[in-house]
């Protein structure tokens, strides 16, 4: 119970601050514990057209990344788990090594590469880096391995092609894993900060994280603390809703994958 309170306190604090008039907070943030409360900050957030633009960008980038990852990783996971081809094990280990590559070791050269290809300030430029992560491949491979082989062998006897088996027989069975990987990919893309900061430098391509940072000018935090907190709540709500919708699936899916 104490843990829950510790966990919730910062969130409640944020909510309270977002409901207070900025001028009051500037003099004493302790006033957040008492009325009067106001929705003024939320009105200000909604009136600023940019917040919606950033929200839209974040949705496009996160959804694009999620779909891309699901396609690439399902294909690769099936390939690594079920099919025989030259250097399969070597390639798999090669992909796993990627788990140890820190973003920072590649971000600068990647920035230059994307500059040469004129990919900055574009949706593909924001989406592509998210597709290269090896975690999804590892995750999907494990999941495919856990599916009994008898299933595809039966289908094989019926004369189905590999692609058909993948598409009709196995893919439907991986739906929980797709949901899990999808949610985590979506979250990671939604919250990514450094890459969009240096790649999306024009405000019409800002994602929410970068846009919110641009709105925080130096001393705005004293004069507009409530406004900032309202923005924070506004930016987090969609993603919280997505999570709450999928919560059951996530637990069930992880249960189906992690222990095997």
């Amino acid at each position, binding site marked *: 119970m104490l843990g829950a309170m510790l966990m919730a306190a910062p969130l409640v604090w944020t909510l309270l601050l977002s409901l207070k008039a900025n001028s009051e907070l500037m003099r004493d943030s*302790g006033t957040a514990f008492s009325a009067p409360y106001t929705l003024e900050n939320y009105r200000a957030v909604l009136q600023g057209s940019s917040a919606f633009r950033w929200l839209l960008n974040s949705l496009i980038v996160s959804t694009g990344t999620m779909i891309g990852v699901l396609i690439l990783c399902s294909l690769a996971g099936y390939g690594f788990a079920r099919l025989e081809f030259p250097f399969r094990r070597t390639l798999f280990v090669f992909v796993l090594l990627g788990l140890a590559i820190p973003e920072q070791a590649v971000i600068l050269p990647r920035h230059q590469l994307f500059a040469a290809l004129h990919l900055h300030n574009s949706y593909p430029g924001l989406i592509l880096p998210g597709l*290269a992560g090896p975690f999804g491949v590892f995750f999907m491979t494990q999941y495919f391995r856990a599916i009994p082989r008898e299933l595809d062998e039966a289908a094989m006897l019926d004369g189905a092609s590999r692609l058909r088996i993948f598409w009709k027989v196995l893919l439907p069975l991986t739906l929980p894993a797709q949901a899990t990987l999808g949610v985590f990919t979506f979250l990671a893309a939604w919250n990514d900060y450094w890459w969009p900061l240096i790649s999306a430098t024009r405000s019409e391509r800002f994602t929410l994280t970068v846009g919110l940072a641009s709105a925080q000018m130096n001393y705005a935090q004293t004069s507009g603390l409530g406004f900032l907190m309202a923005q924070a709540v506004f930016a987090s709500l969609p993603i919280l809703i997505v999570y709450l919708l999928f919560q059951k699936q996530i637990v069930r899916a992880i249960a189906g994958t992690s222990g095997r």
Partner: protein
Amino acid sequence: MTAGRPARRLEGLAFVTPFLIVYLVILIYPLLMGFVLSFQRADLFGARTFVGIDNYARLAADPVFHQALGNTFKLTLLIVPALTVITLALALALNRPTRGAAWLRGLFFSSSVLSVTIVTLIWRFVLTPDAGLVAEILQAIGAEPIPFLSDRNLAIPALAVTTIWWSIGLPMMLFLAGLQQIPEDIYEAAALDRAGRWTRFWRITLPSLRRTVILVVMLQTAAQLQLFGQAQLLTAGGPSGASRPVVLFIYEASFVRWELGYAAAAAEILFMLVLLVTLAQYWAARPREGE
């Protein structure tokens, strides 16, 4: 299927190729470029000269880099064990089918969906010594505010607490999933043997969760060795570099001082470090895996 063997072998390759292309171009190619860069004196804007191992030699003698390495280790050691224990305890406590437990699971997971900009914004106004939540509470009970973000001994613990709060969700979910996989009949057998709660935990639960524990520790270690956003936004690595992790060092070297080659060398060292730690953990977890 009537297709010949070679065709079938290529078929397998066709499934993994799309990912491999993206992986090679977006991850491996920049990694190699970074490796080349680390042997050059290079700035952000194009000038390049080959300097051999100069950058590495400079890093070896750079007290700021040493401090950053030390901070990174401190943060990882503070965060990973605590996070593992806390999330395991939470999973044990919340692994029941009641509405209340579901609600609490949602609460503990909720912070993970926030972006780093928002997490740090929130925590700044929790920790800030005069107007923060902690300060308000301390003042209410008549105590002095604590300067978490500006005391060289408190900055790292403050970052650790923030990070733990932020990352509780995923490991907790992994543990919950692990718990749900332990067959009920094992516990029933234990109940017949009149095993106490502790015995059951040590004898049944923990061994069954071994793989999950390993997974959590490995994922978190790799993640925390790369901690960046919290440090940049909450303390800017201060005071006097007391909370600057390696990644912030890399960021400053590249985007603040424009020393691309130097930054690349530091990034290569971090890569080797993460790789070594991951392999070491993998190796340490491996031998007893005969079950």
